[in-house]
């Protein structure tokens, strides 16, 4: 049984004349430990698919089973719990909490998971060390460069060792050096923790470390490329 199993996913926006059919019956599955890349032109529906798979949005039609849980049947509160305990996120715009320091950003989800303060802080610092920011624990996001912010965001996503990591164009706002760093980090965690990763990217270069590339166009999957 795959860890992600989505069948016949449709997503429509608006109604009647204005209706936009963005996802047109997508079947998607990923095995535990698999690193899947999604590629396609801007507007193809990659992000929209991501939101469905990562339990942030509700498809208009279809079924999604993640880690043996029928996520569409969960209540809002249960979904929040599920996202906390099973999923990790890296967003294009880093999405750090600007009022919190780097380490606070990382240990916030750990606190929510019930870790005590001291323990959460230790784990957070260890994670920040791993992404190479050991002198920036108490910096605010505004005091970090884009690349550094995205590394904090990787640390935050990984600190809880989620079974599945979703990353939507994590390198879109970064130069090539920093982009490569982020991709290396993600790949490393995938290997080390045997995490399932679903990543949207524009650059073929960054998809080369994946197990599989899914090509999308206009709301449908047009090609699946198996790399290993």
């Amino acid at each position, binding site marked *: 049984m795959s860890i992600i199993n989505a069948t016949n996913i449709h997503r429509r926006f608006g109604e009647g004349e204005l209706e936009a059919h963005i996802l047109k019956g997508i079947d998607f599955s990923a095995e535990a430990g698999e690193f899947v890349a999604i590629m396609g032109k801007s507007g193809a529906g990659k992000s929209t698919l991501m939101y469905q798979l990562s339990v942030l949005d509700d498809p208009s039609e279809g079924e999604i089973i993640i880690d043996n849980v029928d996520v569409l049947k969960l209540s809002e509160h249960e979904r929040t*719990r599920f996202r906390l305990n099973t999923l990790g996120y890296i*967003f294009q715009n880093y*999405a750090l*909490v600007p*009022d*919190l320091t780097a380490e606070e950003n990382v240990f916030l989800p750990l*606190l*929510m998971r019930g870790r005590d303060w001291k323990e959460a802080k230790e784990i957070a610092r260890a994670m920040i060390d791993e992404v190479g920011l050991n002198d920036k624990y108490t910096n*605010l996001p505004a005091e970090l460069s884009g690349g550094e912010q995205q590394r904090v965001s990787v640390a935050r996503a990984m600190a809880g060792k989620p079974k599945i990591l979703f990353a939507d164009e994590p390198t879109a706002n970064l130069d090539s050096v920093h982009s490569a760093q982020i991709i290396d980090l993600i790949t490393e965690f995938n290997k080390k923790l045997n995490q399932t990763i679903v990543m949207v990217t524009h650059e073929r270069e960054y998809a080369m470390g994946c197990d599989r590339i899914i090509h999308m166009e206009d709301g449908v999957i047009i090609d699946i490329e198996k790399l290993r």
Partner: protein
Amino acid sequence: MRSLRIGFLLGMRQIQRASLWTNILIVFVMALTFLNLIAVSGVLVGLITGAERAVRAESLGDIIITERDDQNNILETESIIRQIKTYPEIETYAVRYIGAGRLEANYKERRDLSGERDIAQVTVTGIDPIQEDTMSHLSDNMLEGEYLDPNEEGYILIGYYYLQEASDKFGDIFDSLSNIKPGVTVRMTVGDISKEFIVKGIVQSKVDEVSLNTYITEKEFRRLFGRIDRNADRITIRVADNVSEDSVKATLIESGLGQYAKIQTFEEGKPKFITDIKNTMNLLGTFIGSIGIIVASITIFIIIFINALSRRSQIGILKGIGIERKAIEIAYVLQAAFYALAGSACGALLTYGFLLGYFERNPIKFPFSDGILVAPPDETFLRFLVLFAVTLIAGFLPAWMIVRQNTLNSILGRK
């Protein structure tokens, strides 16, 4: 519990990161609200409390002995006084004879005997000038002239309100006499008896019982009113410091004085309207304060609303990565709580550290009272609790409104 910790962290950091001036401004608004709530009714009630204090000091005293309901005077006045003198808890006392008379002025100058006479119906109080002064410090209230001398006869003190100039000022509420000043001769008539007095002085006080009164010596009063039995109408008692008037009253009653007279503490004997006005003022103050609370709650609502709205995508991200709604809501409620607490603390500090003492030293001068600020801590605390609770709700509502919005829409900044 987890939500509380996270809410606390988020809320605290938001306050920390807000600009200092924003925080100062909000705390200032909350402090003003607190003052509005406490001080407005405090001054209104203090107005009456000031009047009440004056009545107690200058007229009624701490314990009031009056005639029993079935009698015209206090019976056995002299033996009561003898008893009173033996109590160390009683600092001093005054005995008063009270009656009504007709006071006439300017009768010698009157040429036209059919013209209107200058007459006022007045209250007459017979006092022992020295004993009275120990109790009510009547001699401090001399507007003009001098206080009564116990060794002289034929002198009278007239209350300011019986003067023409007073009725010109306050409206013609009482009978008044013109051209009254020290040295002038007036005629007092009680029943068939008339006697001339020379005005020794004019007394004025914010206490009506003083300004609307005339004073002569008790000896002359008894003669004028034919009170040969020496029974007085009122004995007022000032108890020593740190002595409860209730216990002194109880002792007096125990020793059997109750059979000769009615014995009341100030609280029992004070005019009922004082209590009524006080309650009215309190209500009025509460009403004005409630408007303040509404304004403050709207202020807090707007502050938290803008605060949360400007962090909408942040709120979305927090929910996205699995932070519970409750935790985020707590963060905003805590901010509201912080502002309410800090503001109230400033307000309380100002009230108890400065305003109370200030008004005690510099009472507000009203025509009928020297107003002080009254802020009993228990009532203040109660009002603070109301302010606090309202603030929490005003903080929670906007947070709830924004936190409940769709997570993805919040993250992406969509409508």
